[in-house]
């Protein structure tokens, strides 16, 4: 559905994307995560042909993103944080304006979305709250059953209730769509993303299915007599911390049996090993800190 190969982009001397390879499978809900300035928004803007990469390739539906045209855009719903809306229009006028551009626009579907989001049709967009504006944008992007939905930081600045409503609407009306979403709200994303890609300093650090990711990351806590680190620890261990009688680390390639064996080899005097699964937020923080430390 979406493919980028060696995508590079820089603003002045600042390299934003440094050879980005991305694969978003059809039907997936792909979460693009990364710290501020990692290049998430730039990636989405290149994919939507709002910006042009300096080198490399990006394609959507098999079409070079620089050549995306009316036919492709009619199959895409794009909503971004801080999107400039026609403030003088009411919600009804806004939806009425976009309706004829999409042959697949369903007025029944539009009404259902409006009911779900409780949007005031007669209110001007400039008088709506941030959350309401995002909902209006989402309605205008879901009413035609887009094959691809691209959301750039959609939850930013939304209160939890609105966030929940937003996700609820998205999941209810995008069941057949591929979704590419960039967000900091990892807790929210975790609940519905099927794939996740971690972008750091313009490169994809990893990209895999959520289930696989959750499976291979474990927080490990080892109780030892006098915690001292061995001279070498496996490369897959990150954020290794020691305290009086504890060693904590994150195993990034957890495998039942193998990790315990590695721990036993590193800490022969270990009195106990506790392995806990990690949430996406913890994984993201671990990786971001590790990347920052490596840099």
């Amino acid at each position: 559905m979406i493919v980028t190969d060696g995508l590079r982009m820089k603003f002045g001397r600042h390299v934003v994307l440094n050879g980005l390879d991305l694969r978003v499978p059809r039907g997936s809900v792909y979460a693009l995560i990364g710290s501020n300035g990692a290049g998430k928004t730039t990636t989405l803007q290149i994919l939507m042909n709002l910006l042009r990469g300096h080198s490399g390739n990006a394609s959507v539906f098999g079409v070079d993103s620089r050549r995306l045209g009316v036919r492709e855009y009619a199959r895409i719903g794009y909503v971004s944080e801080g999107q400039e809306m026609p403030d003088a229009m009411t919600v009804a006028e806004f939806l009425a304006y976009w309706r004829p551009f999409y042959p697949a626009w369903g007025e029944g579907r539009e009404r259902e979305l409006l009911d779900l989001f409780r949007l005031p049709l007669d209110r001007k967009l400039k008088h709506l709250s941030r959350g309401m504006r995002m909902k209006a944008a989402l309605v205008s992007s879901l009413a035609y059953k887009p094959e691809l939905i691209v959301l750039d930081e959609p939850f930013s600045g939304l209160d939890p209730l609105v966030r929940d409503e937003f996700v609820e609407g998205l999941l209810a009306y995008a069941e057949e769509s591929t979704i590419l979403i960039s967000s900091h709200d990892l807790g929210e994303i975790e609940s519905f993303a099927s794939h996740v890609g971690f972008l750091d300093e313009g490169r994809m650090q990893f990209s895999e299915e959520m289930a696989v990711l959750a499976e291979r990351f474990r927080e490990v806590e080892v109780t030892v007599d006098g915690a001292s680190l061995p001279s070498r620890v496996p490369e897959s261990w990150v954020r290794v911390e020691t305290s009086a009688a504890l060693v904590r680390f994150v195993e990034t390639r957890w495998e039942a049996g193998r990790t315990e064996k590695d721990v036993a080899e590193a800490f022969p005097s270990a009195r106990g090993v506790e392995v806990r699964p990690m949430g996406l937020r913890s994984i993201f923080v671990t990786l971001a800190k590790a990347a920052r430390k490596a840099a």
Partner: protein
Amino acid sequence: MTLIWHIFRKDLRHAWMYAAIGFALLLVSAWNFSRLLAADRRGQFSLYSIQVPADALLLVAWGLLSGVLVLAERIPGVRQHWLARPVRWQDLLCAKALLLVLVAALPLISVHLSLVASRGFSLAEYALAVSWNALLMVLVCTLAIAVFASVSRNVQDLVLWTMVVGGAVFVSLALVFTGPRAYPDETRWVVNSAIVLVGVIGGIGILVWQYATRRTWPGRIAVVALCALLVSMDFWPASFWYAVRRAQSAQQVSGQIGVLSVYPENVRWTPNWLPGNRVGMGDKVGLALRVDGVPENWLIESNGWSNIELRTSSGDAPSINANDVHGSIKGKTFDVMFTFPYEFAERHRTDSLDITMTGEFAVYGPPETHSMKVDSEEFVPGLGRCRSAARTELLVDCQAVLQPAVRVVGFWGKATIFGCREDHAPLSRMPISFLGGGISATSSFDSKDIVFEVRKPLAYVQRRVEVRGLRWESVNR
């Protein structure tokens, strides 16, 4: 087409106020202009004091309208809601253009055609030219702001572009217009037409390119480059504009216009006559020139000179520019006057002189003579609707659709009322132009008729002349 109409209606809802203000100002301008057409020359002055600000405000209103339309879907940036939507840029651009046509161009065309018809001119004859002129007028009023808006991120940006770049162009052109111009008066309409056409074509090109590619910085560079080009056109050499005039004018008789030659026996030398104060003054040498092949009742007018080279037999070659050469009409011959620094003339008093230069000429056909009664109003062929009134002076006012390319001389008895040449140019202007003249009361009041001699241009030609071995001692003093 459906989507163009759809975008058009959205834009109209968004910009109706600007459209309405423009329409109201257009009505004021038209109403006042119709009064101006009906007024005598004395009454026109006060009406101009309404006409000028009304037209200026109309220009501002249409400029704002075009800016608002473009900024409704602003082009620079990546956060606009309409991006990543199935909107064809062609539809967007056509919708904006359609709105300008319907709320500005069509009303203006209607108003201009009404004005032309109200003065009794034939609509069948002038409808096309007047419509084209009005369309061009709307383009001139709206295109610059639309182009600036296409590279602006917001209204503040647009104001900055308009003030800085637009202001710089305006001031540069105004300075050229009020200062010593690099081009002669005869080519002014060519230069102005070229500036309008290059501006319109370049502006449309940038606008289309901006919509098609949304490349902000290259677009901004293109806008500045176009403005610089327009300003620079005022400084292009006169020979270029003469060539454009020749290429763009109907050359009905150029083949039969013969060579340009000099009559050595009629060369005159006029020494500087100011005693003791010769610095800055100069001796003058007048050449009598003649163009062959011009029938007796035609008129040939010298417009300007270029590529002037003078060389003395001792090898000295003074620099002479076109401003040092003055020609005047005298039947079929021209007196061309060179001014030399006194020292140069003294130094080469015994040398011979070679002169080569290129002249530009307008050739007019035989005069069509028409007359009209004093204190009457009637159509004069080739001149338009004329009105004459004899009080303490005789005033003649003629109104013509756009500006006919004619050379007119009016006579009242032995007095010449006016001699005026108007050049037709595809410029944006009011549909009816004025031509007028007058004389104070003289003994000619006994004459009943005013006689006009109207000549139409047949060709614009360029001829080169060479004078070899001109000896200054032989020059008549």
